[in-house]
């Protein structure tokens, strides 16, 4: 057997490499945000970029999210391709007007005459006891409001490829990266946060889900950490005689209905696993799509596993209780099989 040479990178390095290659190819690309210069981004999204491009293109900003995101909007409407970093997605509240009234709506309000080709990258996710103001994913909050593409890649390969696609996209793209999947030395170490990443620039399309594992008994849809836990769960389920198909959503907007509905057609059962709040969320949206367009493929009611509708608690036992982990996915999947 021929050995395939793998080039292993962590999530953050893959993402930063995507930014670096686009910056090398296009002088109109620049990055601005808090602690993205000498620090390299609190979650490593710009690691090593200041050294290569200098402070003119890797711009540390004051703690002024309205100004920095608004400035990215202004530069983007002039045709540049800024990448603004919102350190934690939870901080969106400080600057939401610039995000959803300005960035997301200008293309539409201008009848398509003004483009906003920017990327708003932001760290999401909990599980490490950072409490209610630093642990959310908020996939649905952004997905709900029209005018932004919203992506949430899981693997290093997708982080790089989707970052390059996001930068090249003429629309505003909210690029959510999960802290725990960045492969940072000071967080929990997960296999999923390291992976093969080709050296050359490549793209992974926005709006296309990925079937991580094929199966025939049920469909499990996850994104980021729930995909990671899903991978553990499908292995465990295999041992228990359940052949589950696992879909990594990768993109919230556009949502890849086709991949989900085709999978359901094959399996007849579906469960959505989400690290975001349950009500009015991604799991609800997919359940609604299934009800509208795949009802007759269902052999059992749709199952949803998501955060109960509470802010994220600090204390470990309470936080672990609300997060959908591999054990909970297995348990819910067995219930779904028996329904």
């Amino acid at each position, binding site marked *: 057997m021929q050995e395939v040479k793998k080039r292993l990178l962590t999530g953050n390095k893959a993402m930063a490499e995507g930014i670096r290659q686009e910056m090398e190819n296009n002088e109109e690309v620049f990055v601005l945000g808090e602690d993205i210069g000498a*620090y390299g981004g609190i979650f490593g999204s710009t690691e090593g970029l200041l050294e290569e491009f200098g402070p003119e293109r890797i711009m540390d900003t*004051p*703690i002024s999210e309205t100004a920095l995101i608004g400035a990215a909007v202004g530069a983007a409407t002039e045709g540049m391709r800024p990448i603004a970093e919102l350190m934690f997605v939870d901080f969106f509240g400080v600057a939401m007007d610039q995000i959803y009234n300005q960035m997301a709506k200008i293309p539409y309000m201008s009848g398509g005459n003004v483009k906003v080709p920017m990327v708003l990258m932001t760290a999401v996710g909990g599980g490490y*006891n950072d*409490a209610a103001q630093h642990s959310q994913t908020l996939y649905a909050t952004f997905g709900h409001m029209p005018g932004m593409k919203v992506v949430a890649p899981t693997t290093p390969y997708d982080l790089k490829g989707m970052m390059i696609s996001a930068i090249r996209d003429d629309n505003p793209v909210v690029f959510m990266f999960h802290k725990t999947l960045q492969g940072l030395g000071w*967080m929990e170490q997960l296999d999923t946060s390291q992976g093969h990443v080709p050296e050359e620039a490549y793209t992974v399309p926005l709006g296309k889900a990925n079937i991580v594992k094929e199966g025939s008994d049920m469909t499990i849809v996850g994104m980021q950490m729930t995909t990671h836990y899903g991978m553990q769960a499908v292995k465990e389920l295999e041992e228990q005689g359940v052949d589950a198909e696992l879909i990594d959503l990768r993109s919230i907007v556009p949502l890849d209905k086709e991949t989900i509905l085709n999978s359901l057609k094959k399996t007849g059962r579906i469960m959505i696993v989400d690290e975001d709040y349950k009500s009015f969320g991604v799991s609800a949206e997919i359940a609604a799509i299934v009800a509208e367009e795949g009802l007759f493929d269902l052999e059992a009611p749709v199952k949803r596993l998501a955060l109960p509708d509470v802010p994220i*608690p*600090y*204390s470990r036992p309470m936080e672990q*209780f609300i997060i959908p982990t591999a054990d909970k996915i297995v348990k819910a999947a067995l219930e779904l099989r028996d329904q």
Partner: protein
Amino acid sequence: MSISNEELRWMYEHMYKIRYYEDKLEEVYMEGKQPVFNIGAGTVPGEMHLSTGQEPAAVGISVHLRQDDIVTSPHRPHHHAIAKGVDLKRMTAEIFGKKTGLSKGKGGHMHLFDPDVHFSCSGIVGAGMPHAVGAALAAKKRGKDSVAVAYIGEGAANQGSFHESLNLAALWDLPVIVVVENNKYGISVPRDNSTAVPSNDLRAGAYGIEGHYVEGNNLMEMYRVSKQAVERGRKGEGPSIIEIETYRYLGHFQGDAEQYRPEDEVKELRAKDQVNIYRDMIIKEYDVSENELEEIEGKVREEVDAAYQFARDSEYPDESEALEDVFV
């Protein structure tokens, strides 16, 4: 400057208490995080922002505050909380994530709430400023002479909430005192790279209010200007800004590699340590004896040790308690 012996001792007690508390927490935080550091592991998980070195900012003003005065604090809140008289046992239990904590384990170290002493804090930069404005408004509406102190870092002075709140406080003549703790860094970004003016007390001019600057983390100077600001607030003479040049001995959070910081900076700052300088000064220049201070230190250690023991001995909340308290 007139200052009573009682005040001098109170300030030393709290300087020492904060230092002892934070030094201990620095140790406890590393339990379960060695040899491999994982932020979510150990006795106290999650982000940890310690205030070691910044004691004068909290102590110099809190000595003038009463139980009914309001304090809002940011993500680095322990010195403010201790100086305001937040229940030490329940605060520590909260930081440990225990059921006996101030918030039954729901808040953690960035989200401490003790309504008994009108203390709150938030993990969002600049978020406490409008709350202080509102609390001061409530005091004014009720005809009370309490004041509201909003502590912020120098980085927060570039948030919209800072400017909007100052304008409102000035417009409505509210008893708000903003204490800007200039510890030179917003996480990694040096102040000079983030702020267009040399110090934030200058921004007081833009709102027609009082501005003070305290150099060199000086506790006595902080005491002096805070006294004026609090008295003005109580008399209905409007808001003030005090910027204090203070010292962050540790990283932004524990685990911060601090590669952005000059190598000897912390050593130089620690050489100007206010806990020591203040201790020596009051023995030399005032009627406070070494024995008295040793007695205070012993009591403080007992109190703080007891708080940590209480936190350790307390139970974790039941996991299902996560579902409670969304609505009251």
